[in-house]
């Protein structure tokens, strides 16, 4: 415990790196995942198939192997050699997480019952109006819980970066356990940082859901 207090700056740096990894990967995954979902529900058959294949491949591959591809295999092909480690981490996380974001978004759109859209069309709303004021608001609400699950899992998954050159929380934990007998205390302290992040996302999701429910 003394070690942690003496070198609190190292701990905070690691926490900051975990936050950077999570936020940047989260944003990239949301954008890319939503695009993928658009491909998967869109009218162009080839792109639909491409999106489906991407999701099926990535979702069944362990994230660890995605990291191996980006950090260990790609440099051998001459890729990402000069790329900063943080960027490589964000790439690996986003490649993986966007497949799950895609599924969450798609399930949200599908969750809006067809009758809603039919009714909107029947009373004469245009496509833009139907989407803008009937389908999408409900889709967003339906997407919040699964999307929050994905983001929480993603935040925990950033720990995999620990042995790929990024001194985030888990890597820093091993730095401290190397020199100390207080393994349990160190473990609990580092676990607490992750729990804080998870709870923040969780609370944010509940807040959003509540707000949109009130708007109904």
């Amino acid at each position, binding site marked *: 415990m003394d070690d942690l207090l003496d070198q609190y700056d190292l701990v905070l740096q690691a926490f900051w790196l975990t936050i950077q990894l999570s936020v940047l990967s989260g944003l990239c995954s949301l954008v890319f995942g939503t695009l993928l979902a658009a491909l998967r529900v869109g009218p162009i058959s080839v792109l639909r198939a*491409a999106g489906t294949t991407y999701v099926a491949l990535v979702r069944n591959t362990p994230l660890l192997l995605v990291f191996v591809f980006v950090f260990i295999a790609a440099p051998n092909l001459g890729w990402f050699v000069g790329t900063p480690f943080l960027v490589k981490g964000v790439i690996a996380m986003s490649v993986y997480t966007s497949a799950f974001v895609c599924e969450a978004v798609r399930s949200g759109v599908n969750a809006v019952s067809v009758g809603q859209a039919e009714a909107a069309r029947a009373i004469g709303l245009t496509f833009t109006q139907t989407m803008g004021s009937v389908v999408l608001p409900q889709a967003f609400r339906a997407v919040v819980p699964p999307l929050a699950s994905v983001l929480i899992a993603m935040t925990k998954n950033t720990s995999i970066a620990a042995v790929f050159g990024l001194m985030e929380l888990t890597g820093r934990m091993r730095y401290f356990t190397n020199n100390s007998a207080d393994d349990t205390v160190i473990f609990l302290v580092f676990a607490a940082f992750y729990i804080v992040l998870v709870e923040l996302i969780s609370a944010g999701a509940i807040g959003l859901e509540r707000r949109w429910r009130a708007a109904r």
Partner: protein
Amino acid sequence: MSTVLFDTPGPRTRARHRLYALLSGVGLLALLGWFVWYLDEQGELEYELWEPFVTPAYVQVLWEGLLDTLAMAVLAILLAVVFGAVFGVGKLSEHAAVRWPSWLIVEFFRAVPLLLLIIFLFLGPAGLSSYWSVVAGLTLYNGSVLAEIVRAGILAVPKGQVEAAYALGMRKTQVMVTIQLPQAVKIMIPAIISQCVVALKDTSLGYYVLAPGLTTVGRQIWTEFGNQFQTAVVLSATYIVVNLLLTLLATWAQRRLVGERRPIVHPVDPGMGHGGPGLS
């Protein structure tokens, strides 16, 4: 296709869509072709880099690695089902002294990264072997996820059945064991198999503690031959095939046991998380 959203496309729109499909198809094929060309250019397609994967001795170690991986995942899931049943029921207990610790344990293990847990079990005072660190880590994490599923499964049993059982003079434990749990388990089985996919992928984390399994064998192979890319391709392909087979099994089990025609929803779960506290 939700054609409700817009008018049924006319011949011109359909022609346009066909054109887009053609263009994007050509684009994707070109990208793929370029990638293969690039790999060839870099010498990554040379036979000697792939040769280990058609050499009996290495196929053998990979096969054994796969069996280890499967064994760890299955063992962890079996233990996790027990863990999940105990704590899932615990969370529904009427006694606060049982309910609160169950809640705390389940929430803790769901919120902590699995990798952190495995490392702690391996290095910490528990000092488990690498194999058991992975199995125990997977058990605690997946068990906590299953505890939520058990809880939801039990709550899904119609209240009338429970009331009827009480009316017949059954006691609380009897109602739980003979009425609620069996039905909950039936609902849970497809979810459990899906969780196997998650557990199987997570066994890859054994890489960090040298546990036996595919990723550790893979590392030995690329250390020996310097074929990181090729090994990663083979390992990923193996994981994908096994996971797709498991998903098929889950779909079949779902249809058989629950009778729904709809395929089972793949857990929305990037490997390590099934939502956090408060999101059930």
